[in-house]
């Protein structure tokens, strides 16, 4: 067994933002030298406000975006060293928006079955059986398999996305805000499902969220991201009971404020931290 399921070393991604035809483009360091390690079976929560680079990081891990710098290691092997096909058997994504993550022109069965077809696993019959089994596992009623995504609710769609991610039996899931597009009542169901699956299948999670509250009950460790950098990481207890960094404290207090609508308090000025650290 590999020492780390997922290892990021000094990973960066820069974007050049165009400012019209005659001005110099500005450099945006969406992800700026991030190193992270996740042990097999561990759940790491990656938390930070919107726009801090979480999805960019996830895309690089998934091979959807080339890093400007640094490496992604999956089960101790560099992402680029083997094909997408073999990487995708080890690592699968769950995306944020279950309305755009399922092809509207395919039936649920076709969607869940696609990974098996692309990987040429089994014959038609065994594939159909696998689809039924995995649908059972994620709590998706069998009668929905012949339907199109447009006929399903948000929660059901996210179950379909989870089934599709799991059918190749990967060991790692990268969940990029898997519940933030869902109704609050449905969020809890999906989070529970993800936790049950983790126990049952021994999965490793990178669980991305902009909300510390969402990850509190799920994760073993937390990494806090701000403007492309990890500003603090530690075990769940360390972060939730003894946060050191002012940004983490601000995130926590926004979670703990009685009025969630108040959002982040305006104490955020990274220049003071940079001097301090």
């Amino acid at each position, binding site marked *: 067994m590999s020492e780390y399921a997922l290892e990021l070393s000094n990973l960066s991604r820069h974007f050049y933002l165009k400012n019209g035809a005659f001005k110099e483009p500005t450099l945006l360091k969406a992800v700026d030298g991030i190193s992270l390690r996740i042990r097999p079976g561990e759940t790491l929560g990656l938390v930070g406000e919107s726009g801090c680079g979480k999805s960019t990081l996830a895309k690089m891990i*998934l091979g959807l975006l080339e890093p400007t710098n640094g490496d992604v290691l999956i089960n101790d092997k560099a992402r680029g060293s083997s094909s*997408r*096909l073999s990487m995708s058997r080890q690592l699968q994504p769950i995306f944020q928006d279950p309305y755009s993550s399922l092809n509207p022109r395919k039936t649920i069965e076709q969607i869940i079955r696609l990974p098996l077809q*692309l990987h040429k696993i089994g014959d038609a019959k065994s594939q159909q059986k696998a689809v039924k089994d995995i649908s059972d596992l994620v709590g998706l009623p069998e009668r929905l398999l012949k*339907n199109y995504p447009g006929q399903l*609710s948000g929660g059901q769609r996210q179950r379909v996305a989870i089934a599709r991610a799991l059918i190749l039996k990967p060991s790692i899931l990268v969940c990029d805000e898997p519940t933030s597009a869902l109704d609050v009542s449905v969020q809890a*169901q999906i989070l529970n499902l993800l936790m049950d699956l983790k126990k049952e299948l021994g999965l490793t999670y990178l669980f991305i969220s902009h909300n*510390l509250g969402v990850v509190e*009950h799920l994760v073993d460790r937390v990494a806090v991201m701000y403007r492309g950098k990890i500003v603090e990481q530690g075990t769940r207890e360390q972060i939730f009971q003894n946060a050191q960094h002012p940004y983490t404290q601000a995130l926590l207090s926004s979670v703990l404020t009685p009025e969630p609508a108040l959002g982040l308090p305006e104490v955020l000025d990274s220049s003071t931290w940079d001097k301090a650290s």
Partner: protein
Amino acid sequence: MSDSTSTVSTAPSANTFLPVVPEWRRMMNRFLGHRGLLMGSIILGLIVVLAILAPWLAPHDPYLQNISQRMIPPVWHEKGSWEHIFGTDKLGRDYLSRLLYGARISLTIGLSAALISGLIGTTLGVLAGYFGGRVDAVISYIITTRLAMPVVLVALAMSALVGGSLQMVIILLGLLLWDRFAVVARSTTQQLRDAEFIASAKVLGASTTYILVRELLPNILSALIVVMTLEMAHAILLEATLSFLGLGVQPPMPSWGLMISEGKAYMFFKTWVIAIPGIALMVLVLAINLVGDGLRDMNAPEGRN
């Protein structure tokens, strides 16, 4: 938000009771509810059936000349007869028979030209929209160049150069009318290329061809079919124009444009020689446009669900 996790409940997935109306039923209802689409489809369907059955329906051979039967007026004229319901032309050929066979030519040209241009335009547009960057820059340049060319003029010049025939007209129009396909395919592809279902297929290791053909194309097809109807009508009119000017389908083929052209010498005294093919052309183009508009309405997002 924060207490959504502290009150985690193990509620079963009871949210499974959305009314499940079969897709085809919904489509059927909307189809029947759209008057223009219904009418257009009926007329177009009728013309297609008439064209297919032309050999059995036509009372005479459309090419058979009979000098003693020249310029017989249609049946509703006092001098008309049931022998030639729509009369005869200047060479004594039965007008109804020629009209029926002419429908075949119009439809063949419309469909083939639209298919060729659809293939060219969709390929260019999808590639430009999906890959972006330099590919997009080059293809956009090609599209702009094509848009800068006046279609009728180029078609006239080209057919004057290579000579008119049915195949020539099809190829020529196919090579000229792809711009709208390209523009529509490009913009719809741009909207979809970052969709998460595409990303998911990429992560799974699907080839680019698979992603473009099996994941993306079905989602832009409805928009392309609308363009297809427009370009069909466009091609049919252009063929009539070319044939009218003597640069398209050549005599003695019974193209509607050619029929109008051959009748133009008589148009002040024997109006029907150009009225009959003219009205046929108008009805066909109108029907196709009604179908196109209707399909567009049916695919419009506000009509969804």
